C-alpha cells in the first residue's frame, strides 16, 4: 500500500472506513466494551491522519477527483457517454478544509466521550451514531453530486437527531431532538425538491456539469431560494434559529461540539451552491446582500439573546448563532464583490476571514461546549446561578474555558482575533457600518463570557461537590482543541497562506471547479 494508492483512493476511503466501522461497532460492543472503544479511537485517528495527508496534497494544488465504481477513479465521464453519470467525489481546497475541521473535532469529541458517557447505557449505539455523523459530514463535504449531497444530509440529520435524544430519560432531550428533526427533514425535503427542479431542466445531477450549463431561468431562481432557505435553516441563521438553543442545550456536550461542525457543514453547502453551482450567473449583488443581512441579523440578535441566559449551554448556543453571523458576513461580502474589480483586493480577504472563522469557531466553540460538559459532569447542573468557585477544583477546565472565551471574543494572541481582524478590515471597505456592528458584537461577547467565568469559576468553593478534576480522556479531548486554538493564534499568517487561501480560492474559482470534473 504505497502513498500514491492511498492518495488516489483517500476520498472514498475517508467515507467508507467510518461507515463500515459504524456498523461494526455494535457487533464488537457485544464482545467487549474496551475493544469497541479501541476500535472507535483507531478509526477516528485513522480518519484524521488520512485527512491530513489528503488535505496537504490538495492545498499544494491538486484537486482530487474520485469516480465511484469506475475502473479508473479519475475518469469522470464514461466512454459511451458525454456527461458524468457515476457519483463523483470532488475534493478541492474548501472540501479538504472542511474535512479537516470535521475530522479534528470528531477525534476530540470521541476521546471526550470515553469518560463522558461512561455511566450511560447504550454506548454501542452512541458510537455507531457518532461515526455516522462523521460519515455524513465528510460525505457532504466531498461529494460533487447533488443527490448524493441530499443523502449525506439525511444521514447527518438522522444520526444527529438520535444523538441529541441520547439521554432519552430526560424529557427535554427528546423535545429538543424532535424540534431539530422537524426542521432538518423540512430542510432536506426542500433541498430534494430543488434538486428535482434542476434535474427536470438539465437532466444532470453532477454539480460541475450543472454549473457549466446553468442558465439562471425562473425555475433555477426558485431552486436557489429553496437551497438558501434550507441550508440557512440548517446552519441556524436568524430568523430560522429557534432549534439551535433547544437542541444544543440538551445534547451531550461531545455531541454539541459535533453539532457545531454539522451546522457549519450546512454553511459549506450553502456557499458551495452559491459559488460553485450558480457562480456568476446569479445576481451576486442581491444574493450577496441577502447573505450579508442574514449574517448581521444572526450576529446581533444572537449575542443580545445570549446576554440574559442563565443556562450555560443555552448561552453558548446563542453565541454559536452569533458567530455563524461572522462567517455569513465574510463570505457574503465576497459573494457581493465577486466579478467586480474590488474582489481581488478586499473581496478575497473578506472570504478568507469568513472561511478562517469557520475553523476557528469549530475549535473554540467545540472547546467551550466541552468545558460546559465538564462542568455539568461535575456539578450536575447547567444553571449558572447554582454553581460557583469551580476553579478551586477544576483548574485545567478553568484554563481551557478562559482560552476558549478569549478566542471567541477575538482577543490576541488567540485564533478568533486573526479571523475577526481579516473580516473587520475587509468589510470596512464595503461599508464601515458592517465593521462597527461586528466589533460591537465582539465586545458584547466578551462581556457575556466574563459573566459566565465569574459565576462559574470564581468565588468560594461549592460545598457538596466532589474534589478533583474531570477524567483524563475528557481533558485530552479538550487539549486537542486548545492546541489547535493556540497554534492557529500564534501562526495566523502561515495558516492563512497555506490552508485558508487555497480554500477561499477554490470557492471563488468556479471555472476550476467545473474543469476538474469535465475538463476543458
Amino acid at each position: 500500500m504505497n502513498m500514491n494508492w492511498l492518495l488516489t483512493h483517500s476520498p472514498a476511503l475517508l467515507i467508507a472506513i467510518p461507515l463500515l466501522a459504524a456498523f461494526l461497532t455494535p457487533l464488537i460492543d457485544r464482545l467487549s466494551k474496551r475493544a469497541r472503544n479501541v476500535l472507535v479511537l483507531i478509526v477516528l485517528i485513522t480518519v484524521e491522519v488520512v485527512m491530513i495527508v489528503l488535505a496537504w496534497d490538495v492545498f499544494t494544488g491538486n484537486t482530487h477527483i474520485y469516480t465511484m465504481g469506475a475502473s479508473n477513479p479519475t475518469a469522470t465521464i464514461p466512454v459511451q457517454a458525454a456527461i458524468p453519470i457515476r457519483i463523483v467525489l470532488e475534493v478541492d481546497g474548501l472540501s479538504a478544509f472542511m474535512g479537516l475541521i470535521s475530522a479534528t473535532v470528531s477525534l476530540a469529541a470521541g476521546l471526550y466521550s470515553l469518560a463522558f458517557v461512561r455511566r450511560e447505557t447504550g454506548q454501542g449505539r452512541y458510537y455507531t451514531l457518532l461515526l455516522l455523523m462523521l460519515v455524513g459530514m465528510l460525505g457532504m463535504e466531498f461529494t460533487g453530486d447533488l443527490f448524493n449531497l441530499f443523502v449525506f444530509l439525511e444521514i447527518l440529520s438522522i444520526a444527529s437527531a438520535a444523538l441529541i435524544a441520547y439521554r432519552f430519560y430526560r424529557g427535554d432531550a427528546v423535545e429538543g431532538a424532535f424540534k431539530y428533526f422537524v426542521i432538518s427533514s423540512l430542510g432536506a425535503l426542500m433541498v430534494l425538491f430543488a434538486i428535482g427542479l434542476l434535474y427536470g431542466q438539465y437532466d444532470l445531477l453532477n454539480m460541475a456539469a450543472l454549473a457549466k450549463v446553468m442558465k439562471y431561468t425562473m425555475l433555477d431562481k426558485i431552486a436557489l431560494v429553496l437551497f438558501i432557505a434550507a441550508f440557512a435553516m440548517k446552519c441556524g441563521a436568524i430568523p430560522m434559529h429557534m432549534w439551535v438553543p433547544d437542541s444544543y442545550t440538551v445534547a451531550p456536550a461531545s455531541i454539541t461540539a459535533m453539532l457545531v461542525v454539522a451546522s457549519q457543514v450546512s454553511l459549506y453547502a450553502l456557499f458551495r451552491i452559491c459559488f460553485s453551482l450558480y457562480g456568476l450567473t446569479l445576481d451576486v449583488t442581491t444574493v450577496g446582500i441577502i447573505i450579508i443581512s442574514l449574517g448581521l441579523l444572526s450576529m446581533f440578535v444572537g449575542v443580545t439573546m445570549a446576554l440574559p441566559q442563565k443556562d450555560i449551554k443555552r448561552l453558548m448556543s446563542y453565541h454559536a448563532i452569533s458567530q455563524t453571523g461572522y462567517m455569513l458576513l465574510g463570505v457574503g461580502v465576497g459573494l457581493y464583490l465577486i466579478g467586480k474589480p474590488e474582489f481581488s483586493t478586499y473581496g478575497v480577504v473578506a472570504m478568507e476571514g469568513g472561511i478562517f472563522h469557520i475553523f476557528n469557531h469549530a475549535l473554540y466553540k467545540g472547546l467551550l461546549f466541552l468545558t460546559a460538559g465538564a462542568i455539568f459532569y461535575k456539578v450536575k447542573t447547567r444553571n449558572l446561578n447554582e454553581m460557583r468557585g469551580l476553579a478551586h477544583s477544576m483548574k485545567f477546565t478553568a484554563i481551557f474555558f478562559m482560552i476558549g472565551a478569549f478566542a471567541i471574543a477575538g482577543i490576541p494572541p488567540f485564533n478568533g482575533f486573526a479571523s475577526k481582524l481579516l473580516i473587520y478590515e475587509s468589510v470596512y471597505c464595503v461599508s464601515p457600518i458592517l465593521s462597527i456592528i461586528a466589533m460591537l458584537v465582539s465586545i458584547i461577547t466578551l462581556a457575556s463570557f466574563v459573566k459566565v467565568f465569574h459565576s462559574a469559576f470564581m468565588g468560594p468553593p461549592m460545598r457538596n461537590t466532589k474534589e478533583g478534576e474531570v477524567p483524563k480522556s475528557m481533558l485530552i479531548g479538550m487539549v486537542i482543541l486548545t492546541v489547535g486554538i493556540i497554534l492557529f493564534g500564534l501562526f495566523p499568517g502561515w495558516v492563512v497562506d497555506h490552508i485558508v487561501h487555497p480554500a477561499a480560492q477554490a470557492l471563488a474559482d468556479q471555472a476550476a471547479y467545473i474543469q476538474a470534473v469535465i475538463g476543458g
Partner: protein
Amino acid sequence: MIYNIPFIVVVLLIIVGLATVVFKRNLIKIVIGITIIESGVNLFLITLGYRENSVAPIYTFAPSTKMVLPVPQALTLTSIVIGVAVMALMLSFAIRIYQHYGTLDSRKIRRLRE
C-alpha cells in the same frame, strides 16, 4: 392541461403538508404533515421521468425503445427509504415525549422554554 395535473397535485400535497406542520399542535399530526410533503416531493420526481406510452427501462426483450427515465425512480426509491427512517425516528420521539409529559400537544411541551 392533462399532463399538468400531477404537478398541480404535487403543489397541493406540499401546501397541505406545510400547513399541517405549521398549524397543527399534535406531534403525530406534525409527523403526518412531513410525510405528506415527502409524498409530494416523491410524486414530483416520478412525474419528471414519465413519458407517455413508454415501457420500463429494461433493455432485454424490450417491446420499444421509448422508456421512462430510470434516474428519478432510483432517486425516489432512495428518498422513500430515507423517509421511512425519518418517520420511524420521529414517531419514536413522539412516544418518548408522551411518556414524559403525558400529552402530545406542542403547547404544553415546553420545558425547554422556561
